[in-house]
């Protein structure tokens, strides 16, 4: 008979109490796991999305650059525009390798579907070297290129005619971009002039994506662009990533502190439960000692019980967190202004190890005092019959 077998048997002896204890730890660990995984997933996905832009620097109209970045990443309407003439000034900077000016709009199709329109020109292809187009690039003012997901959902292929909802403009599909697994898959690309005309935004741009000649000189390029024009915001994407990362990190510290308090409270609950069980089992522990059990034997047994309970809580918490990841993710997405696309909460061995390690630590800490009390029980007092 092993220590853990006996500890396990002691736990299942009072199933309701054990389940409640495990649940207390499990909830705290589930929240902790979800938070850590969300942070990790958010950073990774955001990095992926910014990387998919194929640019090092973003030039947007004056206003909140992060809001502009969100529009650039996920598309949509934004009531701020730059003059198209700025694109030539940006391209003229010696540090710029490529620059593409974009205009964006969104229309609603039947059923409330939001169709993101992105107007650009051949320059955009230079930022998308991995694009594979079935069909051809824009071959007329009324041609349109579709992202893979959009084309699939709409059942469109090169050569098909398509009427742009809401605007009632007839377009011809000139090409479909092979799947890129980025936001591009859901976009509709039009010639920039065409979209400017359709949207009544002639001569306007929403964003200029800039690829630097030398990545290690991005800071100099940003400084140069900033000095040349006052009516635009210039920022490197690394800065955007860093700022969002810092925002997330500061949130993480706050939320982690709150969750750690929950974990500690869970630990106090475990301590209370185990201590109560020790008091209830005073005579039984006295018997163990009468049978030759030493202080360390009893200490180990009670400690093992506590650690088993908290580890069970940790495992339960991780399973619950992974199982409810979609629901939790949806809730968090609803509370924050911007979240990258794709799954943010997944199964990460490092986070699992962290949570299980924390539950072991919790068991070690919460079980110490009850184990000490149990070890201190004197058999002669515990088994009084006279």
């Amino acid at each position, binding site marked *: *008979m*092993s*220590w*853990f*077998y*006996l500890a*396990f*048997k*002691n736990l*299942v*002896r009072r199933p309701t109490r054990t389940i409640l204890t495990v649940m207390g730890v499990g909830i705290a660990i589930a929240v902790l796991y979800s938070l850590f995984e969300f942070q990790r997933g958010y950073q990774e996905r955001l990095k992926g999305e910014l990387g998919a832009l194929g640019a090092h620097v973003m030039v947007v109209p004056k206003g909140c650059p992060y809001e502009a970045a969100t529009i650039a990443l996920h598309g949509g309407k934004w009531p701020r525009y730059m003059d198209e003439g700025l694109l030539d000034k940006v391209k003229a900077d010696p540090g710029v390798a490529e620059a593409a000016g974009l205009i964006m709009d969104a229309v609603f199709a039947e059923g409330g579907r939001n169709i993101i329109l992105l107007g650009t020109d051949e320059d955009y292809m230079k930022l998308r070297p991995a694009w594979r187009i079935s069909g051809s690039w824009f071959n007329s003012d009324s041609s349109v290129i579709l992202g893979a997901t959009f084309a699939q959902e709409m059942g469109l292929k090169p050569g098909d005619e398509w009427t742009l909802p809401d605007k009632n403009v007839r377009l011809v599909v000139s090409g479909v971009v092979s799947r890129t697994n980025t936001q591009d898959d859901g976009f509709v690309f039009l010639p920039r002039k065409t979209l400017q005309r359709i949207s009544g935004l002639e001569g306007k741009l929403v964003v200029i994506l800039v690829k630097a000649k030398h990545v290690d000189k991005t800071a100099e390029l940003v400084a140069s662009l900033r000095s040349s024009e006052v009516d635009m915001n210039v920022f490197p994407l690394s800065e955007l990533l860093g700022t969002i990362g810092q925002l997330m990190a500061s949130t993480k510290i706050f939320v982690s502190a709150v969750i750690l308090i929950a974990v500690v409270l869970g630990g106090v609950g475990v301590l209370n439960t185990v201590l109560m069980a020790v008091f209830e089992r005073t*005579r*039984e522990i006295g*018997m*163990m*000692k*009468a*049978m*030759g*059990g*030493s*202080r360390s*034997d009893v200490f180990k047994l009670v400690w093992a019980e506590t650690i088993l309970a908290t580890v069970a809580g940790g495992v339960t918490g991780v399973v619950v967190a992974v199982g409810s990841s979609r629901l939790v993710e949806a809730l968090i997405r609803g509370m924050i202004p911007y979240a990258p696309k794709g799954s943010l909460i997944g199964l990460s061995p490092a986070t699992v190890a962290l949570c299980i390690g924390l539950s072991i630590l919790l068991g070690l800490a919460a079980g110490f005092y009850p184990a000490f009390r149990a070890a201190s029980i*004197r*058999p*002669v007092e515990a*088994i*009084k*019959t*006279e």
Partner: protein
Amino acid sequence: MVKWPSGQVKEAEGSVGPRWDAGPPDRSTTSAVFARGLTREYRRGAETIRALKGIDLEVKQGEFVGVLGHSGAGKTTLLNLAGLMDRPTSGTLEVLGNDLSRRRGLDALRRGNVGFVFQEFYLMPQLTALENVLMPKMWGRARKGSGDWVLGTGQEPQKPGTVRAKELLKLVGLEKRMNHRPTELSGGEMQRVAIARSLVNDPRLLLADEPTGNLDTKTRDTVLSLLLELNQDSGLTVLVATHDLSLESWFSRVVKLEDGVVQ
């Protein structure tokens, strides 16, 4: 007649814990319990309670002794001292020839030399009869004869500890009940499991404190017969404390205690 499965307890395989050191004067081969002026006092608030008042007592090895007395006479205190669960306030106490006043690590010594049976059986309800008997094998460091159990397999490894526990359950007539839990056993069966548990580490001294207190007359006789047979077949020294003065005839010798004094 029940046959003792492993011969003399002293020589049994798989015995645990340190054996006694012999010290002058050497009573280790003849005396199981030797007390001179044995006193045990307790403090209860401002009051001092003298549970044992300087008693002299000697129990020879191989004896089957009854410690008789009314409630509060000091029987349990005497058994606790003899069973290494407590230390005397004053006086001399030697158990199996060892002076307890100078000994440390009584739990290890108790594990290897003393078995306990109580009025209340103290069986762990979540364990089977066999697991309850095996439990004392867990205590202390890993040792020869400890029976391990593989969680979830439902298989009992045929280690010496498990074999010994099964032998003992057979000895007490419970070979067909070894996989039952205490709640599925009668009072007499539970006490027999407790006796098997007290023997699993092959003790040289068995102390039974009111072992028949919770049993009906018929079951009481069964349990006492078992203890007597253990004594007669293996030479195990047995001390039985009871308030039931009618049991006097069961014992080879009787020590009567009254108000902490041997009568």
